[in-house]
């Protein structure tokens, strides 16, 4: 059995799964129950400045029959008094010495306020502190949260104030609401932070009510942008995680990164680990299904690691990071084409319409006699199950014309039916970068490009 325990910037926990700083970690009662369910740690819901909340604070995005592919919220930091939170943090830590208890903090942007909160947190016996530079609503209007995270200079300055007094590990949590997440991360590195975490929620308007024309959720006739999170944000989070991992300043600092943003299953977790996260935080899927989901997060991850021969979490971390590159480094001679397994195909023709309408028109409908037929070629008098099924043409990729765009593969509803087959292109590997150095004229002039294509036998349908 794989060892799931982690040591993240000196913070230890029996597994990499922490509750993210959010409603699930709002109280001692909740965190206690989460630990009973098996969570490795919890980042306490942010404590600090006094606040008042509103009703209808969560909106959600549903798709088809799937509820809550994303949630957005205008909830502020903890609305429970500071001393109550501090007392409960201390109680939970005493009761659960093997779990990671991290306090998230956000206060007014003065050295005094930050020094004060850091000392109070350290008095609780917490294992670490997370600086909330990401909250995109409400707090940011008061100069906190993402108002800090979006300005690298503020980020660095405040982190320095914190590091002046902090004796326990300090994690800087980054906002995704910025054009280049590397900048505030570098600022945190420069200020001496112990670790980074990302992503906080993304600015979003979830919906408009088509009956009342009000914003959803409706807060007394108004609504506004809220923090967007959940399964739908995972690809954005992974990209930002990779951006940090590929930045030399951040990579050289060796600061560990706590990854979050849409982690719902152990599969998501494994992907975050492979791309550089060494602890994982979860919120939306817990808000959807409760603390119990940690069981399969651990079990599935452990089984997968066993299957792959990974003994520990550090064995997995960043394993796939080196495969991330830029377009200019991709092999332009790499060739894949789509092939449809006729024994699995159910003839929904979704690949056909996707290819024909929106891609490269290289899937044909082939009738029983081998001829290419147009869609709906049947006679209007034809009907019945036997005729409809019996005369339905096959969908076949015209491989010579297939550019390997992979759209059909993506729309196919049948497991393992369309395969992307790697085929030798007959050309030596070459990247755009190499091409633009060796034959710059080809990359700058359409006429030269056409000549190059003709010479290389590149036929673009």
């Amino acid at each position, binding site marked *: 059995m794989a060892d799931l325990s982690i040591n993240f910037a000196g913070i230890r926990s029996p597994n990499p799964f922490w509750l993210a700083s959010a409603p699930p970690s709002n109280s001692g009662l909740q965190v206690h129950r989460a630990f009973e369910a098996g969570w490795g740690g919890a980042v306490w819901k942010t404590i600090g400045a006094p606040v008042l909340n509103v009703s209808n604070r969560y909106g959600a995005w549903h798709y*088809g*029959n799937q509820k809550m592919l994303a949630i957005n919220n205008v909830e502020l930091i903890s609305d429970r008094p500071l001393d109550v939170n501090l007392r409960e943090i201390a109680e939970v830590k005493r009761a659960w010495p093997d779990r990671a208890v991290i306090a998230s903090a956000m206060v007014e942007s003065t050295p005094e306020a930050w020094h004060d909160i850091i000392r109070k947190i350290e008095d609780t016996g917490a294992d670490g502190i997370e600086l909330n530079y990401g909250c995109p609503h409400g707090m940011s209007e008061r100069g906190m949260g993402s108002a800090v995270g979006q300005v690298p200079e503020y980020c660095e300055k405040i982190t320095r104030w914190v590091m002046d007094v902090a004796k326990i590990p300090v994690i800087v949590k980054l906002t995704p609401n910025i054009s280049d997440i590397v900048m505030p991360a570098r600022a945190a590195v420069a200020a001496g932070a112990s670790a980074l975490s990302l992503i906080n929620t993304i600015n979003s308007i979830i919906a408009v009510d088509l009956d009342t024309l009000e914003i959803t959720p409706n807060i007394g006739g108004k609504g506004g942008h809220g923090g967007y999170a959940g399964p739908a944000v995972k690809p954005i989070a992974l990209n930002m995680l990779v951006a940090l991992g590929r930045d030399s300043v951040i990579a050289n600092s060796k600061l560990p990164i706590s990854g979050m943003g849409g982690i719902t299953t152990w599969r998501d977790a494994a992907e975050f680990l492979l791309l550089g996260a060494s602890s994982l935080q979860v919120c939306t899927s817990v808000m959807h299904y409760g603390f119990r989901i940690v069981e399969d997060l651990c079990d599935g991850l452990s089984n997968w690691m066993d299957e792959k021969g990974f003994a520990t979490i550090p064995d997995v971390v960043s394993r796939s990071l080196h495969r991330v590159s830029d377009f200019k480094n991709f092999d332009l001679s790499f060739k894949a084409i789509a092939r449809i397994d006729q024994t699995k195909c*159910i*003839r*929904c*023709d*979704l690949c*056909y*319409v996707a290819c024909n309408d929106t891609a490269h028109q290289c899937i044909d*409908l082939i009738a029983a006699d081998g001829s290419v037929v147009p*869609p*709906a070629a*049947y006679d*209007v*008098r*034809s*009907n*019945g*199950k036997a*005729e*409809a*099924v019996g005369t*339905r043409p096959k969908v076949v990729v015209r491989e010579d014309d297939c550019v390997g765009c992979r759209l059909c593969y993506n729309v196919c*509803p049948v497991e393992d039916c369309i395969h992307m087959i790697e085929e030798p292109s007959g050309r030596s590997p070459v990247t755009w970068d190499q091409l633009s150095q060796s034959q710059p004229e080809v990359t700058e002039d359409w006429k030269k490009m056409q000549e190059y294509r003709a010479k290389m036998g590149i036929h673009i349908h």
Partner: protein
Amino acid sequence: MTLPRAASSPQHPLGELLPPLTQHEAFVESTRCLMCYDAPCTHACPTHIDIPKFIKKISTDNLRGSARTILEANLLGATCARVCPVQQLCEGACVLGSEHKPIAIGRLQRHAMDYFYSSKINLFPPAKATGKSIAVIGAGPAGLSCAGELAKRGHAVTLYERREQPGGLSTYGIIGLREPVEVALAEAEMIKCLGVNIVTGKDVGTNISVSELQNKFDAIFLSVGLGYTPSLDIPGEEFILDGLEYIEQSKSGADTMQIGRNVVVVGAGNTAIDCATIAKRLGAERVTMIYRRTENEMTAYPHEYDFIKREGVGFDFLAQPIRVHLENKSVRALECLRMELSENDSSGRPSPRPLPGSEFLLPADQIVKAIGQKKPSLATQLNLTTENGFIKVDEHFQTNLAGVYAGGDCVRARGAASTVMAVEDGKLAASAIHERLVSRG
């Protein structure tokens, strides 16, 4: 237009069997649809309703658009949603059928149609009058469909119906368990709203002559259906009930209907199954269906056969009725001959042959026959060319008389007669009539 529900309460033994889908059930089911391109369900539907399109519209809560999609292809969408043999048609062709459960297309269609009939919306604004007039004879599915399609194109249509109510077999011949009578009547009402003048209680050939109609109208469409059950030609036949009348009674007065304790139904088609269902559900102790061939040759749909077996109805195959036995002028038994199957006949099925000396008695106090329908009598009256007794039409649904068209069960010389085929006939005939009247100027 509303769809009254009182008389078809699901609590009644012959009340509608399937409950409507809830909004949530319909939404969940609609999201399962893959939205196939050039979908096989649409091909399999005789009226070629764009099924993925109407289902997608249910999933986006565009029920008005969904209803319109259905009705544009099939004006009798509410009836078809209930009575179509979907297993043989759309659902049978669903690509999810092979490894998963096919989409419940019939029930989703009913969901959209129920919305339409309960929301008083008008989907088809009146067209500019063409000045042409057409008489449609028989207000069953083919007639309603043809009349409605012609009215949508601006023609003046008069629809003659010999019965008191329009709807044909939907009103009189399909048990309420599958389609409550109110659904059929609401549909006819909708056709009326399209501008069709429905004249009931007028029998063409009796009250009005066809030549009168030929003088008055630019074209005629015959959708007269078929007749009652043909004779078995056996002694005591007068004591045997006609299956279609049996069904009619169950729809007009189920509560006062006389049901035997021991009922024998002769025949093994879908009408016979409906008769057996009525008998069983209205209190018969024992119901037996007899058929001179075997279950392999029976014309009932497999799902109907499954249904009736679960109802607790028994079967006696390879049995041919030869005589009704009476006691005090009441039915006591049906005497039958045992049959065996021999070589195929003209219908492609093995023909039954009696086994000499195999007479046996089936105790019965009520016998119902459902062995098909008589051929249209109007055909002979009008001297129409026929094919096996059915009216013969060309590819444009025109009979041998110029300007006289026909469709529905009365032309169904080949293939299984069904509501949806009749609707398509009406639709195609309407197109042909329209083309003719418009091109002729």
